[in-house]
């Protein structure tokens, strides 16, 4: 790991100012970034830790709206979020990783196999930054690509608590990342299906399944597997296998919601 300066501001405004320096990089819980630095795949001149910012902490539910601070750890989401999202967070990594990793860090990184992006899409979440609010549909822009500008910080996430939701994760058994993960939610805007781990374009909504499930919410209504074109193919699974998993996991999620 190359050396860097370390700063830990206590407000969002201070963090934004610190990130204005060239080659400065925000640090959430570091569970992806620190291993990346060790591999010398990144070499920021300065790390700006967001862990000391009180206004980015906490998970709360009020009037049907779930608000999660960008600095909330997976363990905190698992303890305090609405049940389907709590269950998702409780199965990320391992306990020690969940005590450090944050939802803001995960969303800013947008790993194609991370769990949260599928949930954000399915729950029609609003990603709140220091500068603006971004709808989940506009936020995820491909593998490791997001709508965030340079130096922009995810300060929180806002979600309308769904009528029903379920996440099905098919774990890659060594990494425990999702080989494929499907989050199905019944929202005020209808059924939404978010998929992670499958597409080379990163997390996406399976709109064909959404249309079918809006007609009839049952596992039998889930369409045949989506096209394998553009699905990830690697030593863990072929594109066709992943496409197949998308349909199977969607059915399981729908059956679990009932």
């Amino acid at each position, binding site marked *: 790991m190359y050396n860097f300066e370390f700063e830990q501001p206590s407000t969002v405004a201070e963090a934004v100012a610190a990130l204005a320096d060239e080659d400065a990089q925000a640090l959430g819980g570091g569970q992806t970034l620190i291993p990346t630095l060790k591999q010398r795949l990144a070499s920021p001149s300065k790390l700006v830790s967001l862990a000391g910012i009180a206004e980015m902490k906490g998970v709360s539910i009020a009037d049907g709206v779930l608000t999660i601070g960008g600095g909330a750890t997976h363990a905190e989401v698992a303890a305090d979020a609405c049940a389907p999202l709590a269950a998702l967070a409780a199965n990320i990594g391992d306990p*020690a990783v969940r005590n450090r990793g944050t939802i803001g860090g995960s969303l800013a990184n947008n790993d194609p196999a991370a769990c949260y992006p599928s949930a954000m899409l399915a729950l029609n979440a609003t990603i709140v930054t220091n500068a603006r609010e971004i709808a989940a549909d506009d936020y995820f822009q491909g593998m490791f690509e997001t709508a965030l500008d340079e130096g922009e910080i995810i300060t929180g996430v806002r979600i309308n608590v769904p009528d029903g939701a379920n996440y099905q994760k098919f774990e890659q058994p060594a990494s425990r990342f999702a080989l494929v993960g499907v989050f199905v939610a019944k929202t005020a805007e209808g059924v939404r299906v978010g998929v992670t781990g499958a597409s080379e374009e990163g997390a996406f909504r399976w709109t064909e399944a959404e249309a079918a499930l809006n007609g009839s919410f049952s596992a039998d209504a889930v369409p045949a597997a989506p096209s394998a074109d553009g699905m990830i193919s690697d030593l863990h699974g072929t594109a066709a296998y992943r496409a197949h998993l998308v349909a199977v996991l969607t059915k399981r999620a729908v059956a679990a919601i009932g």
Partner: protein
Amino acid sequence: MSQVTMTVNGKTASGDVEGRTLLSQFLRENLNLTGTHVGCDTSQCGACVVHVNGEAVKSCTMLAAEADGADVATIEGQANADGSLNTIQQAFQDHHGLQCGFCTPGMVMSAAALLKDNPKPSEAEIRDYLEGNICRCTGYHNIVKAIMAASGQDVSAIAAE
């Protein structure tokens, strides 16, 4: 270089660190607390688990600077005041929960974190909680048994395999 100060096993500890200094490195090289082991250095194996402000973390994947001002507990602080093994450590010895011992500091620290939140975990809960702690000797069976025994549960029915 900048100075960090933290409480480690109840005592104040300070030192000069670079931005990139890991907590595991600070504990081992600055404070000579070499009980915290670094197995994989990629946050897979859990040999480096310590508690920071009461929560289990992988100290190889946390910067020393991030622990500035924190309350840190390591394996060196686990024994009783008179130097005898604490309940978890004694259970690991009684139930042969270790062979080479390399993973043991992390196992004991993870077990302590589990039992703090869940004083009577089931076997399945223990196995699930130890997902991030790898042991290449024991096959985990006696580790799980030791943790069940440490939580005061009867393990006589669990046959050694």
